[in-house]
């Protein structure tokens, strides 16, 4: 079957008189690494919210694995294999790092993959190992450092065993080595066949990591193609420099 994993068609979202998204089309192939860039306020987060289901788009369609998910609530979309992180990490602060991962494992991954609840703990430890938080497994998640919270955000999304993971500005404000850490994690996902939409301002990371880049400006997609082509696209350059 040769269809996109995610197909966003003509999606529009308005807040009162303000149009946040204006007939946006976007698609992602299985295992693809797509970058989504654009100036602040261009609608990137709104698009993520519409895709993940935390906001309802007024117009347009969103298809995941060929299925129209427009009417599905966010938790159903997570169960179907669509995970996201939040720009500002939202840990379950009364729980340990390990228990944070149990939630998506038990509620999103388990439904789809059908493993026993008692395995969740081991699965969670494995994921923590991958992201480098294994030794902090029993720490209360509210007490982590910034970078660790970002890693936890990512780990939690990974724990949902998604087919598509949307990473919302996970690199903001991180040091070079920390950026490389996170990029390494995201690259590993590709090895497992997980597609990634990476929303970033960190241009170097986007250019290095992504196979394709889409550009959103004022709610409209103005470019979509190979990184080099997009980087030299005159409209894109103006949009960024003209800010």
């Amino acid at each position, binding site marked *: 079957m040769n269809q996109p994993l995610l197909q966003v068609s003509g999606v529009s979202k308005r807040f009162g008189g303000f149009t946040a998204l204006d007939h946006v089309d976007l698609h992602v192939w299985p295992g693809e690494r797509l970058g989504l860039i654009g100036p602040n306020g261009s609608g990137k987060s709104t698009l993520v919210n519409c895709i993940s289901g*935390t906001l309802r788009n007024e117009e347009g369609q969103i298809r995941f694995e060929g299925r129209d998910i427009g009417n599905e*609530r*966010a938790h159903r979309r997570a169960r179907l294999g669509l995970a996201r992180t939040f720009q500002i990490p939202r840990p379950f602060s*009364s729980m340990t790092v390990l228990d944070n991962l149990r*939630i998506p494992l038990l*509620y999103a991954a388990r439904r789809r993959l059908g493993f026993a609840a008692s395995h969740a703990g081991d699965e969670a430890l494995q994921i923590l190992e991958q992201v480098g938080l294994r030794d902090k497994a029993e720490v209360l998640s509210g007490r982590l450092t910034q970078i660790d919270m970002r890693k936890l955000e990512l780990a*939690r999304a990974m724990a949902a065993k998604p087919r598509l993971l949307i990473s919302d500005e996970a690199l903001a404000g991180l040091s070079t080595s920390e950026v490389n850490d996170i990029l390494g994690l995201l690259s590993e996902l590709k090895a497992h066949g997980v597609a990634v939409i990476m929303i970033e301002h960190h241009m170097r990371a986007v250019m290095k990591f992504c196979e394709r880049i889409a550009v959103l400006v004022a709610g409209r997609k103005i470019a979509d193609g190979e990184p080099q082509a997009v980087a030299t696209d005159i409209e894109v350059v103006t949009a960024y420099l003209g800010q």
Partner: protein
Amino acid sequence: MSNRTFAAAAFAFGLALVYGSGFIGNEYFFSAAYTVLQFVILATAWNILGGYTGYVNFGSAAFFATGAYSSVFLYKALQPPLLVMIATGTLAAGLLGLVVGYLTLRMRGVFFAIATLALSVVLYTFVVNWDYVGGARGAYILQPHEVPFGLSSYIHFLYSAMVLMTVAALIIARAIERSTIGRGLAAIRDDELAAECSGVPTLRLKIFSATVSGALMGMAGTTFPYYLSYVEPSAAFNLSYAVNSIAMPLIGGMLSWLGPVLGAVLLGTALQVVQITVSSAWNLLIVGVLLVVFVTLAPNGIMGWVSAWRHRAARLERTG
């Protein structure tokens, strides 16, 4: 400790209390203990939606009174055995929780809280205008002459029934707390949006929580008419139920089943003492002040203190 082991132990403990109390001659003990146990159930029930899920219910009285008045209604209509009354009252209150939850839990917790406040007043108004169950004048419920199971007095019997209901409530609360559902509820409490995006069916779980919480609060009220032999709306809908069911878990600790028990036993006993020595208005004032003090200074309650103290001790051990 698994659920089954705990259930067996709790049940055994309950039976021991019932049997052991047969040696107590003082009727007042049963009366006071009945009240304290009532609060244990209410606090535990409230905490399922409040502490576990993070949604504040100001209308505990509405659910409690539903249990009480469904008993009154059945008494007037059919005079069924007590067990039937308890079951019906519990179901009725659960249904109320389900309906109210379904209608209002889609919104922010704040609106749910306000809706529960509204619920109490609306229900109270209905009951006051419903003559079949006595309306504003109240209804008389006669305690049967024969005390079941050969116990010493009817109040002893009510106390015993209360003990068993308390045990049931604790078993249920603890089972929920430690189950996958309990984890889901905790996720909702910590960050509902993140929970939803992690696959937790938040609305469904919230409604479940509201239903169970309501049902147990109703259960606490089902024997109330027999306890006083007389029920009138202002007693059944007494504000103290609303305040105490919030204050007790807050004081004891909202994150586990033990907190409400602690809070209810401590505060409940203290209130019984104050009730005899001073007036009941002072009673309420004390609860109110305690509520405010704890919520500002010790939001995790006594259990919170204990666990923080333990964490600190453990950390010192690790570094020292």
